[in-house]
């Protein structure tokens, strides 16, 4: 478990980093927290010629909350987890991030790295999908913003081009009257999800005006359960409604069987967790409680 040889760069400016990526293209890999990349290197499942370590880049370790949430590429998951203001503007992030690995991992792993890594069972991609997040991508010749919905392309495949760095991930402010919930079943504490769900509901005048149901671990990317969302919108939140929406969500995914659970089991989990999650989110929306 020693990596194959590679050339290591630790650029001190963003331009320098982008320049290296422009030269080396897909022969290069960006190193952020290293919590996903280093195991891949050690097991020689990835053998890039070049490593571009972005940890020396200035001004990327920010978390701001003045207008929604903005998280820089070098903000560690633990930093986001501990930030009390994040709990206020994006309680779903706070609730879900505690499920990412273990404390030791969150101390190093970055939130943006987790999005860029795009494990279909990871928590942050799911949450950014549920909250209409965006990624800010930079390359030598310019920048662009990609919505979470467009960013996750396939298993560990994103819209990132080899010469791009994701400098930031952001979430718009959550409308008032919203409540959210994150639920996960993992084999052990700290494992990737067997299945996970995130729901966000906005309630106005007793009816659900807006609903987001996102599913993780049950497809090649995190998924939006659009049929479940449609079922919820403009309805009064009732137990029967949650049962129906949960059932719809369980049909909105494409789970596969692996050694941690069957496809059928994952579908059941989606149903159980969406049902439970909706109940929780609605209570939170009504009481204004965190979440």
């Amino acid at each position, binding site marked *: 478990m020693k990596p194959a040889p590679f050339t290591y760069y630790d650029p001190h400016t963003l331009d320098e980093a982008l320049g290296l990526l422009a030269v080396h293209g897909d022969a290069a890999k960006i190193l952020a927290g290293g919590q996903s990349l280093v195991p891949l290197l050690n097991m020689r499942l990835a053998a890039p010629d070049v490593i571009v370590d972005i940890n020396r880049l200035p001004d990327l370790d920010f978390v701001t909350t003045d207008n929604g949430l903005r998280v820089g590429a070098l903000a560690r998951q633990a930093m986001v987890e501990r930030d009390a203001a994040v709990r206020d503007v994006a309680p779903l992030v706070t609730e879900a991030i505690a499920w990412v690995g273990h404390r030791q991992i969150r101390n190093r792993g970055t939130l943006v790295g987790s999005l860029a890594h795009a494990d279909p069972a990871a928590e942050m991609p799911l949450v950014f999908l549920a909250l209409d997040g965006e990624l800010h991508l930079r390359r030598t010749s310019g920048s662009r913003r990609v919505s979470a919905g467009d960013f996750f392309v396939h298993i560990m495949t994103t819209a990132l081009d080899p010469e791009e760095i994701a400098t930031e991930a952001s979430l718009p402010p959550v409308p008032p009257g919203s409540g959210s919930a994150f639920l996960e079943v993992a*084999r052990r504490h700290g494992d990737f999800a067997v299945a996970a769900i995130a729901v966000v509901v906005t309630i106005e005048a007793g009816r659900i005006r807006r609903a987001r149901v996102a599913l993780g671990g049950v497809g090649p990317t995190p998924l939006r359960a659009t049929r479940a969302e449609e079922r919820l919108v403009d309805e009064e939140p009732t137990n029967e409604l949650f049962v129906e929406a949960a059932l719809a969500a369980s049909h909105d995914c494409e789970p596969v069987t692996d*050694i941690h659970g069957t496809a059928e*089991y994952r579908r*059941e989990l989606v149903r*159980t967790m969406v049902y439970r999650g909706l109940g929780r989110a609605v209570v939170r929306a009504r009481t204004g409680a965190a979440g």
Partner: protein
Amino acid sequence: MTTRWFGDRVPRNEDQRLLTGQGRFVDDISPSNALHAAVLRSPVGHARLLRIDTAAARALPGVEAVWTAEDLGDALRPSPLVVPHDSLTHGRTQYPLATDSVEYVGQPIAFVVAADRYVAEDACDLIEVEYEALPAVVDLEAAVAPDAPLVHPDVPENVAAHLVQSVGNVEEAFRRADHVIEERLVLERGAGQPMECRAVTALFDPVEEVLTVYDTTQAPLSIRNGLAVLLGLSENQVRVVAPDVGGGFGVKIMMFYAEEVLVPLAAVRLGRPVKWTEDRREHLIASNHERGQIHWASLAATNEGVILGVSDRFLHDTGAYTPYGIIVPIITATQLPGPYRVPNYHSDATVVYTNKVPVTPYRGAGRPHACFVMERLMDRLADRLDIDRVEIRRRNFIQPHEFPWDVGLTFQDGRPTRYDSGNYPEGLDRLLEALDYEGFRREQAEARLAGRRLGIGIAAYVEGTGIGPYEGAHVRIDGTAKRVVVSTCVGTQGQGHETAFAQIVADELGVEPSEVRITTGDSRAMNWGSGTYASRSAVVTGNAIGAAARVVRQKAQSVASGLFEASPDDIELEWGRVGVKGSPQHSLSLWDVAVVANPIRYAYGDQASEAMQLMKTRDGAALESGEAPGLEAREYFAPDRATWASGAHGAIVEVDADTGSPVILRYVAVHDCGRVINPTIVEGQIHGGVAQGIGGSFYERLVFDEEAQPLSSTFMDYLIPTSMEVPDIETVHVETPSTLNPLGIKGAGEAGVIPVAAVMASALEDALSEYDVRVNQMPLSPSDIRDLIRLGTDVIGSQPG
């Protein structure tokens, strides 16, 4: 003897060192000019090797050697079959490097020695191997099907051994029975995951012609003896040291793992130290596994729930080789009757080759399987007769007055399976009391009303421990250092030998345990013995140490009796002093007595010189014939046969029926290992065992695909329980001394793991009784538990709504 220390919660002598990072493990030993080795392992489950091209690897800068089987010369020999058995008609052991075929993923094919591990692994990548795929044998039942492909072409039907043992007349018992229970029961493959993987570092000193091997082995003397033969050296020229070792659990005892041959051979041939440290992936795919068995078991009983007979046929997955004979299935077969009166018993075990890593004993070594089978049968019998699961056990326990109890079988050591002592009813009573069994039933009913599903499970077991052949110990008083120095050859992997052994010595010699320095696992420190396995070190080595310390005490008494002109019987050893009973002015420190016991004409150091003044010059020779200088002794202990520990465990488990997730709310272990040397250490052993049992119940499963590719080759897929998954474990000690050794002790190392799967199965069924869930297989993931729930209900019923 006073027993001031025996039985006390003495803090561990080794903890200061281990907990502050001062332990010295094999990988900490880094000779300055060491070379590093890596092993190219088979990526395929079964194949002929058509061609191996090492040219590119050899040409890589920094590479010192690349070996395949044909480079090994005289060292190319299959490893010995260490425990032969008449039933093992087709035993096979492996060569250090594959010769013309590979039989499992992970099997060593080539060995690279290079400037560092990185280069060594780069070189492995450059070795070209051409494989001709052969059909893989994976599934145990398919392996013995008539037209199954063969793991070894010369082993028909993939059967390594067929072992049959019988007591009484089972057929007659089943004819007589009011009830017959029949079950197919499965335990899947798992393996020990010590915190420290395996490692070997070897240095050859060409001047002294001594090969020193640091090895994580549990049995350094066996490795020493084997290496001497293999390398054509005398035993004195080979020193094998197992320094601090971070967990063994059986997986670190082999004769040999390939690296235990290749690394020393490389050190001798290349004339430089060579170092190899296993990584976790290697450990998961290429170090020995255990557990996989399928049983078809039946039990015959009367209407009153009294067992008339048990009949069990099983398949045991031994992987591709049988380096450890058929120890594991023998243990399963002989321990299956457990703590119960089973007057008629028939066991029929078939040991089956598959294209997987060889199976050798791992903590429990066949016992968790046996316990799972027997306890499942007991639960089923209780359910069938509508008798409480506790009561059914009470009705069948061997009673305290019935010892020694002859099961009528032949145990792993070739000796009769005869339980020396025990009190099974008391163990169960203590368990129920601790669990508040009655109270729990109320709590369970209340929880059910609140929508929660709680279940209780119990299981009882016995464990044959402390087998021979023998162990030895050397005890010496180092008067100058003010220390008792003890050596034994058994390896230590964290069991606390440095403390438990010290307690035994401290009591004999009237010193403090912290004044006793124990050396384990160094072949130079003790030339005779076997190793740490089969829950035997405390029993066998402990008693050898006790015996040696006793002789040293007698010597001290005899020396002091000369000094004080008193009878040796009147000399007592207490608080570090040796003196005449009731006359404190006539006493000396034990250290001074040791100095005096060495009749040379000077002594270095103030105290020693003072002590020398006391020496009486005697007429004639300084030592009489047969007399030895100093206070030291070497003694051995060879037990007659195994001593039988026992216990009963219980757990309360909550299951979320919608997600299938179990949570262990309480776990109680009642344990009887005879006289307890140190309760804290025994509890630690039990906790670790229970944690491994929880792994084997809900998490740890080594999965292979149909081509024999391991699918659980990292800790992301082979899930060991963490502190988050293991509840607080409550322990209760029951002590029925062994009748087979002077200290009255029984082994404690493996016990914790034995009943856990049985307990969990029982608790799951209780929690999910409304779905009529039947647990016949372990481990179970939440997904599997949902499968069982679905079998017992329609899916909608258990889902929200």
